[in-house]
């Protein structure tokens, strides 16, 4: 089998989307890795829905303070200029359109940018947390995910069959195989993992994907 990108590399590719000065929220799981992967020439302000703006990289075991955690329960480090607020203020920022980019995990993404990332069969008690607010409120929603399920089934689908987080919200999908933009005309394949071909990626994708004119290998 050909190589796929590992989680660290997917997160690194996502972090390249963070423009200088942008306000970014990182979802549960793989997106959290982005905190340690900001391009060196940029300042990024990480917001966390439990009520924090401007935190630094993840804390080492020695640095851990359980009253300085991100929304994924990970202890983080302080930075000058950071601030704390309550959860209601955190969601004014989120719902009010003051977050430039959110990076979220997903079970499924549809070809129109629909997102399913909180519920799955057999686990009716798992909740959406702040995912719905982030998907609706952030100016740009980036999804980082594995291209296929454990069984090799597609996660990028015509219509989500898992419970929806929000309709038409995802702008960019970054997987272990490809970078795809959600456009008015469907999914456009912008970048592809080294050694993979368009038909091979399409075969693992339920939704139609159109190669971009400037399709290239995923660059980091």
């Amino acid at each position, binding site marked *: 089998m050909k190589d796929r990108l590992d989680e660290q590399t997917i997160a690194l590719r996502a972090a390249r989307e963070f423009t200088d000065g942008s306000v970014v929220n990182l979802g549960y799981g793989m997106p959290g890795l982005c905190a340690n992967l900001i391009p060196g020439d940029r300042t990024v302000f990480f917001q966390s829905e439990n009520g924090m703006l401007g935190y630094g990289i993840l804390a080492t075991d020695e640095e851990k303070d*359980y009253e300085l955690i991100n929304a994924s329960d990970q202890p983080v480090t302080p930075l000058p200029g950071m601030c704390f607020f309550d959860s209601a203020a955190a969601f004014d920022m989120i719902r009010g359109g003051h977050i430039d980019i959110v990076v979220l995990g997903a079970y499924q993404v549809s070809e129109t940018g629909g997102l399913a990332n909180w519920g799955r069969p057999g686990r009716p008690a798992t909740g959406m947390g702040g995912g719905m607010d982030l998907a609706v409120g952030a100016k740009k929603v980036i999804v980082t995910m594995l291209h296929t399920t454990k069984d090799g089934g597609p996660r990028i689908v015509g219509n989500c069959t898992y419970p929806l987080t*929000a309709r038409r919200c995802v702008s960019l999908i970054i997987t272990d195989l490809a970078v795809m933009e959600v456009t008015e005309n469907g999914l456009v394949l912008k970048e592809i993992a080294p050694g993979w071909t368009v038909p091979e990626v399409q075969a693992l994708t339920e939704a139609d994907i159109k190669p971009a004119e400037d399709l290239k290998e995923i660059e980091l």
Partner: protein
Amino acid sequence: MTINKIFNSCDEAVADIFDGATVMIGGFGSYGGLPINLIVALSKQGAKALTIIANMGGVGYELSHRIKPGGYQDSGILFENGQVRKFIGSVPALGGMPPTSPLERLFNEGKVEIEMVPQGTLAERLRGGAGGLGGFYTPVGVGTTVEEGKEKKVINGREYILELPLTADFALIKAHKADAVGNLVYRQTARCFNPVMAMAAKTTIVEVDEMVPTGRLDPEVIVTPHIYVNRIVEVPA
């Protein structure tokens, strides 16, 4: 003033929580900001048929070791004890944990009801309850299971759903410092849901790391004004 808000123990502070009460539990979910000692006191006190409003449902003592070495008690103990009838919150169970948190187990057995609320909507419903609003329109949840049974309205061309305020008989919250009249400050991300719950409950009970004399907290930095605080227990960290 003759009113004394200071209680000697968490047990005394939660003694009158009654069967069938609605109880908000502050914090975010895991260790930081959770009123652990008040939760444990409520589990000993034994009130039944509670409605619990909290961001997360708690993972229970056993699973808590995965979040913090040594583990800690959370609302899981209230579910384990069979004290809860209904849970309202955004993360009843964590998808990243195996399905064995006390709330998830009881829900799957049909013994607890769950009302699932997006986290920002939860925060805003609490603020609405605190501030006397009748409800608000949010775009969050449109087109999802969250909109089921709710009024929808198009305002300026965008679809919204109507969400109603939340209030409670009691809130159990955690703060860093309190002065003797009950003004509160928090520490870092342990602030989270505590201030809005303090405002939204009829009786707010707070455990604090440290009591300080009135006048010691800078009036510019007080987060929860004392009128939202009814009972204070000092539990040094």
